[in-house]
């Protein structure tokens, strides 16, 4: 606590400051934030690609980056919350596809308004999330196993049921069905003036704001940190640990529904084999964003920065005209670096507060 004391910032009037407390400079307060490591990383990645890729700074390129980040980010937000709550969801990737398939096939087979299909899909997807949560809290098995099971089952169901109902591995086009136009504005893209805006970016921003509000300013947020940081202690003071975890899984399911509807309504068919592997991307974004893999620490904004890094890297490599095969290598290196940086920052921040 003695060495490396930050020079007291002049000009700040200390109102009732404890003499044992080294004046915390704004810089050090910033260092204590979970998303700091990822912000530094994001700036580094941004500067790097601005230099090596000429096309990177054009408005259209940045829009593409933002779109890529938003599709991932929508899922990374609830996955980060779940991770702060101390659990994983490996089924999140295919759940997006399941949600899109249910919506599409229900509307097509029942010749219903696509909004009815979307509503049915919402209920079923939330049910899937609740199933994950209930299985976890009832069996007390690790979430890794439970959601690995759901992941495999959903992967099989997606392919099996789609082939059974449609005869092929993709769904029939619902582009000409009732309600499609309005649904594609809500979930696909819309235009303001003469700019086209991807709806996912709006959804993403709303989710980030909502999740941050929940985490930092509500009782439920307090419980999320508690069940991830010390489930037994939380239970002992009366926190409904099981309900909290089930709701977190349903949060992931809700985001999967949004992503699924985006998938469906920005094209009009869904490939049943999609989504496999994405669940790890969501987790990577959350971890790069400063979520502790063991739970109890992290932020929604961090997951957004993680998603942004992911988007910049995946598109930056294209704009730099490199072989996209290198993307995974960069992503892996980034994950390691970010995790190390986070661990280092947190250790320093905790040692000096």
């Amino acid at each position, binding site marked *: 606590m003695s060495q490396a004391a930050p020079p007291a910032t002049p000009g700040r009037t200390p109102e009732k400051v404890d003499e044992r407390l080294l004046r915390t400079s704004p810089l050090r307060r910033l260092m204590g934030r979970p998303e700091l490591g990822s912000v530094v990383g994001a700036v580094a990645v941004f500067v790097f690609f601005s230099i090596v890729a000429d096309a990177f700074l054009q408005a259209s390129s940045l829009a593409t980056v933002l779109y890529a980040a938003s599709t991932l980010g929508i899922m990374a937000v609830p996955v980060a919350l779940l991770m702060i709550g101390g659990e994983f969801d490996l089924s999140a990737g295919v759940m997006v596809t399941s949600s899109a398939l249910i919506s599409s096939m229900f509307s097509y087979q029942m010749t219903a308004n696509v909004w009815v299909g979307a509503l049915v899909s919402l209920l079923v997807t939330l049910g899937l999330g609740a199933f994950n949560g209930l299985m976890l809290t009832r069996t007390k098995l690790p979430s890794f196993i439970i959601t690995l099971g759901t992941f495999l089952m959903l992967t099989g169901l997606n392919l099996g049921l789609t082939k059974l109902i449609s005869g092929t591995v993709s769904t029939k086009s619902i582009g000409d069905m009732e309600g499609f136009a309005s649904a594609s504005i809500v979930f696909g893209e819309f235009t303001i003036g003469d700019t086209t805006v991807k709806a996912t970016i709006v959804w993403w921003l709303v989710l980030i704001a909502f999740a941050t509000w929940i985490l930092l300013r509500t009782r439920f947020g307090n419980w999320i940190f508690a069940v991830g940081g010390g489930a037994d202690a939380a239970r002992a003071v*009366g926190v409904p640990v099981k309900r909290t975890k089930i709701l977190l899984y349903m949060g992931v399911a809700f985001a999967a529904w949004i992503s699924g509807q985006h998938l469906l309504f920005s094209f009009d068919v869904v490939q049943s084999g999609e989504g496999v592997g994405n669940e790890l991307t969501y987790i990577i974004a959350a971890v790069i964003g400063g979520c502790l893999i063991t739970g109890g620490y992290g932020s929604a904004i961090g997951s957004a920065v993680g998603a942004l890094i992911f988007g910049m890297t995946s598109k930056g490599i294209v704009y730099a005209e490199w072989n996209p095969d290198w993307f995974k290598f960069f992503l892996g290196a980034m994950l390691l670096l970010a995790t190390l940086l986070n661990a280092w920052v947190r250790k320093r921040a905790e040692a000096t507060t």
Partner: protein
Amino acid sequence: MSALVELDGVSKYYGNIRALEGVSLECRAGEITCVLGDNGAGKSTLIKIVAGLHRHDAGTFRIEGEETSLASPREALDRGIATVYQDLAVVPLMPVWRNFFLGSEPTKGAGPFKRLDVETMRRTTRSELLRMGIDLRDVDQPIGTLSGGERQCVAIARAVYFGAKVLVLDEPTAALGVKQSGVVLKYVAAARDAGLGVVLITHNPHHAYLVGDRFVLLKRGVMSASHTRQTVTLDELTRQMAGGSELEDLRHELERAQAPTHLGGHPAGKERPAD
């Protein structure tokens, strides 16, 4: 006035294992009841029954004279019984003020704008801790950065603030040094003076005798003795706690013990074969 908490012949079985058999104790307002026992004596089982984590299988459990069987820790809290555990009193990574109000967070606003009353939470945490004599550096620091004694004290202050009538403390001094233990015992006494009944679980008769009014000794799941402060001396308590005659036997055994020929699966005194 009836006791705040009264156990009468309480037993608990896990399958065919008799964890607790016929244990009686009472705890009155403004008094400290100490439960003493060695590891495996049934102290944790006893505490879990009082805290609402387990239901008892036989005997009666009365809270303020009314017979009950607690279904959950929440119910115990609602009935005024707050339990502070040695190892899981708090969530280490969370700031002190979030820990202080965990599970009973005050809110303001209504509907979708219902939110944590952060200002009140911070201010109350600071003032309540100060009232207990804990002068905290920063309520925003993760509680894991506090010392073990300070953490216990925060948990005790929290229980007092939330209107606990009975405070159950699970080995509050077990992992602490001499000075830290003294600090914690001071807050235990402060809670007593505030009119709370305290059930103090410990295996240290010295700590128990410093503050205790009643003493219950557990041995292998049964109650081996029950004293009030008037009927027992520290020496007697220590002797009974240490096992009395058993200690004598142990002394003999240790004196006569032969050097073992095998230690840890390897012939003693020989080099471990290289593999």
